[in-house]
């Protein structure tokens, strides 16, 4: 692994914490310094962990659902902030929402991926966020 790809991988792994930063800066910054997220961050294994891929998927989602092309709307749709007590709470909230999406067949096909609506909205959120500038 070259230093550059290693750096890219770390940044990609940290990407999901970027989502947390955008959502609840205080909580997420705290956890970011406590430990590094693993490959199954947010329980979204198999889900594109690379920011670019998430953006591509997110942009396609937003092309199809234009009315959600707003960060605040997406955050609201992802769940009420009250449940986002900390990183663990957020994770658990998103996981159960994703499980519920699959159980209730709220899935979409984006760039071939069969994703839950919650996952797609997370990608959309990523697509709306300012670029991290790494690479």
């Amino acid at each position, binding site marked *: 692994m070259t230093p550059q790809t290693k750096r890219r991988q770390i940044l990609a792994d940290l990407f999901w914490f970027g989502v947390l930063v955008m959502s609840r800066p205080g909580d997420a910054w705290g956890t970011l310094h406590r430990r590094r997220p693993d490959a199954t961050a947010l329980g979204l294994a198999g889900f594109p962990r690379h920011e670019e891929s998430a953006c591509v998927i997110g942009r396609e989602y937003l092309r199809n659902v234009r009315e959600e092309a707003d960060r605040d709307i997406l955050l609201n749709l992802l769940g009420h902030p009250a449940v986002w007590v900390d990183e663990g709470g957020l994770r658990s909230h998103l996981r159960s929402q994703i499980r519920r999406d*699959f159980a209730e067949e709220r899935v979409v*096909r984006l760039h*071939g991926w069969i994703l839950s609506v919650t996952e797609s909205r997370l990608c959309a959120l990523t697509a709306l966020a300012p670029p991290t500038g790494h690479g």
Partner: protein
Amino acid sequence: MRFTGRLPGHRPVPPNFASEGGPALLIDARTLPNNHLLQTDVCIIGAGAAGIALATEFASRPFRVLVLESGALEPDAETQSLYRGTNLGLPYFPLEVCRLRYFGGTTNHWGGTCIPFDAMDFEKHQWIPNSGWPFLKSTVDPFYPRALAFVPLRHVEWDPHYWAEPDKPLLSFASRRVTTVVGQQAVWRSSRFGITHRDTVTHAPNITVCLHANATQFEADPTLKRVTRLHGASLSQNRFAVKARLFILAAGAIENARLLLLSNTRYPAGLGNQNGLVGRFFMEHPIIPSVALFKPSNPQLPMRFYHVHTVKRSLINAGLSLSQEVRREERLTSVNIGLETFYDGPYERAFQSQGLRSFHHLLKRLRRAQVPDEFSKHLSNVISDVDDLAVAAYGRARFGDNYPIDRIKLSATLDPVPNPDSRVTLGPQRDQLGQRRVQLDWRLTPLDNQSLHRTLEIMGLEFGRAGLGRLQITIDDRVTALAANVQAAYHHMGTTRMHDDPKQGVVDKNCLVHGLQNLFIAGSSVFPTAGSGTPTVMIVALAFRLADHVKREMQ
């Protein structure tokens, strides 16, 4: 009654053909006098899967049987070239490559995979045009155990739980919408019917096998009710004819149609083709090698059940399919999904390395106290790839058999929609015998593509629902993408389909050509649908069913 002594051209048994059952009755059509007439009770045209299965059933029965085979006991290029034809439709193999024209027929290169048809394959479905057989699966079921023993398979069990083992579990889904489908491999080499069943056929006192005998045209009586004789020729250009009480055409789905179409002396459209159906509804099992990628949530997801492996002395493989309930609900055709695992980079590289293969080869030989062949070559491979061996050993020590998975590639095999525009016709070119060669125009329908994509979407949903991971469909959903990526399985079916109504099928449910009293057809050309299983066992089961019918008729 037998032909021995009366027939010119009777050859002694070739040295490699000796057996304890007495002399084989083999004649060579090339040595028959020109315009010779052979007389028999039952004439089987073709010694492939269907023809041989029928012949074994007729062995030692109180009627005479003549089996005509275009080739010999071994392949030869000139005979094989009779199969050449033109392809007009979807990309397809050269027609002289995808089937074999010698004793044993296409079983001589059969891979041996057996997957049974399911009940839905036989039913008429409103959403699948031209679906349905003239009988249900229960009609064929009694013949299945005999067919499985003939192929042969060691087990008659298809329930995946029977095959699962603690270290090779089935994938666990949250619902029963996705099921595991098991394929069994026929016992190695026994699946070459021309070898395994040769003695039974050629040593039966009532059976004569005529090699190098090409059927060229059926001749019917003026009322077109009975086939009066079959004309044939060898590549030495000597002509002969066969007179029989019953004829059974078992030359494979492409040649069956071709021979009927060529039999156009009295009826220009061809024999049995009064409704223009002969050659139509050609089906193959379309295979799309790469349709999706599955990224498991747990990189160590146990997937070994879905790799080719040995259980209870049988080689099996497994795939996934939607349950019959879902297919009904969603109005889909059947799609079988194959799974190919790719491990994390260094492990995948190690598994692909020559060194690891050589290491396994050496180990296997040494365990059996045998001297490995090409020892120095294998040793050199091991030394060159010692780093890959180290990676594999490290992986095994750390992960046991469940190496971390990078991705799983999904392939798909479709049960195609019967399509009248997918067809075999006669082309302008002629073979060495002056017979018109075939043109194949293989086509699929939009429903085939739609079923593939909807199946993948549902699989993706169920993978997610079960927490197994996420699926990415990698094949474009346009029909053109399906056409561009499709491969085939050497399964030719449907060109003389079975239907109770002569306007919808060439043969009736007893495989008798509509309108004729003594011409039957055997083999997968009578399949009205291609089915979700593989054809060989069904070909044999139907041949046994037809054999029982013929035995009754001959009494």
